[in-house]
């Protein structure tokens, strides 16, 4: 295969990574932007989404398509409910104090991880994709008659991966519409800007916080349900999404949704391309280096505003 088809394959794989990452990271960005909470347990909500997706599809047994469809709806809601519960019972009790929420979410991280190990076990388990047609992709070559298409061996993508990209895009558009166009979104943005004043205007800030924490975790879980037919569910799978989400949120400008999505594209695509041509480890090294450089030269991120 020539360089061109390789690059196209790497870009497509990168686009899948980017789509999943954009969903996960926008959950983290939402929580950080509105609540000023650094949620270290975010990766575990992702992991929980994947593990619960396996559990739900396993329960449904014979009908993988229906099982997966149910998992796609039910699992994010389950994880969101759990996160909302954690917010009301833990984060609210410590008044969302920045340092203490970090320690508290580290605690939540270990609780979720160990409970999963004790119940679900240490195995990585696959979930069958609801549909998985292999689509061969064309590439062009120059022949004597001009440019013609051919189908290089190995250049293909599955219909499921394309669906993941589409679904992530759809959910992100929906999230954007909720934030910009709905009353709930307006209340969330007001809370983000000034908690005290939002309270003074009668916005139920505590309920908004609980909802936002739930939404953030739900987005991570949704991303995990989407990715689990590609990646398998495992109790330690939360680490990478957490690291990459943090990288993306920092690059995007803490709490900025458009910035987060753009940074997810950048990191996801470069991760895909570098992983194909060099190694996945190098991709992580470069992404982390990029964050370090950005923190030196533009600490507010690409789209962030300087905060006092």
């Amino acid at each position, binding site marked *: 295969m020539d360089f061109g088809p390789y690059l196209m394959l790497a870009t497509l794989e990168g686009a899948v990574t980017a789509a999943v990452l954009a969903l996960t990271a926008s959950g983290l960005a939402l929580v950080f932007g509105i609540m000023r909470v650094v949620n270290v347990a975010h990766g575990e909500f992702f992991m929980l989404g994947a593990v619960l997706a396996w559990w739900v599809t396993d329960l449904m047994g014979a009908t993988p398509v229906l099982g997966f469809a149910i998992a796609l709806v039910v699992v994010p809601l389950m994880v969101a409910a759990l996160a909302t519960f954690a917010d009301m019972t833990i984060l609210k009790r410590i008044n969302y104090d920045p340092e203490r929420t970090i320690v508290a979410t580290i605690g939540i991280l270990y609780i979720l991880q160990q409970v999963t190990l004790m119940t679900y076990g240490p195995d990585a388990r696959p979930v069958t994709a609801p549909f998985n047609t292999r689509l061969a992709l064309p590439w062009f070559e120059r022949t004597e008659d001009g440019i013609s298409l051919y189908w290089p061996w190995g250049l293909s993508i599955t219909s499921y991966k394309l669906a993941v990209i589409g679904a992530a895009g759809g959910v992100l558009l929906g999230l954007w519409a909720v934030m910009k166009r709905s*009353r709930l979104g*307006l*209340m969330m*943005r*007001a809370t983000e*800007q*000034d908690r005290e*004043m*939002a*309270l*003074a*205007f*009668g*916005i139920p800030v505590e309920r908004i916080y609980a909802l936002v924490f739930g939404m953030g975790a739900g987005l991570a879980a949704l991303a995990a349900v989407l990715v689990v037919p590609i990646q398998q569910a495992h109790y330690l799978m939360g680490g990478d999404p957490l690291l990459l989400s943090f990288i993306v949120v920092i690059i995007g400008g803490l709490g900025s949704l458009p910035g987060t999505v753009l940074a997810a594209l950048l990191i996801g695509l470069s991760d895909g391309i570098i992983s194909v041509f060099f190694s996945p480890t190098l991709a992580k090294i470069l992404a982390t280096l990029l964050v370090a450089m950005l923190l030196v030269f533009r600490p507010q991120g690409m789209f962030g*505003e300087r905060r006092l």
Partner: protein
Amino acid sequence: MSVLVAKGLIRQFNGLRAVDNVTLEIPEQQVRALIGPNGAGKTTLVGLLSGRLACSNGRIDFLGRDITKVPPHKRIAMGMAYTFQITSIFPSLSVHENVAIAARRLCRNEKDTRAVVADALKRVSLAHVANTDAADLSYGHQRLLEIAMGLSQSPRLLILDEPTQGLAEGEVAEFIKLIHDIRQNTTVLLIEHNMDVVMQVADVVTVLNHGQVLFEGTPADVQANIEVQTAYLGGAHVKA
């Protein structure tokens, strides 16, 4: 019926009595001005009335209900709106969105909200900047936006803390017109340094000094009163 009745309000800050046994009664449809030299306790008094500060002693009735222990956001829900001495708007929301937040409680649906917001913005003549970010407005317009946020709540009592501070002369004239418009259906408590404004809009003026009510009367009475003039012009509390 009186909109607001405050009896024997005391606020103690360690050794200092910022508000010392203040009694205040504002009847419906009145524009009441609260004046006094710097440090007289005006802003503290507003803090007590709005609920941002707790009373050390005393009782506040609003529309016939005891609200002494009611938290600020519930007082707003009951029909008390106020603007602060420091501009309090959401800077990166648009002008429209700012007012929509304030009007949220009264409006059940999107259409109502639009109508209420448009009306409030029209009254303060900010309709033309509805889609601008609040942060990009001039200081004077930000203060008007605050008032629009107060008005959109259809308040029974509107408390304005130093609304003309930092306004240009033309803007002050506009503001006086605005108060005349607001007074048609709203009771106003106006904390103000600018005596011109007070003389033009107030029905009754309450003068505060050292946390106590020094004098209460019509603007003309106040001007004639020797004590008031001493409070402003003499002693340690000179205010030009």
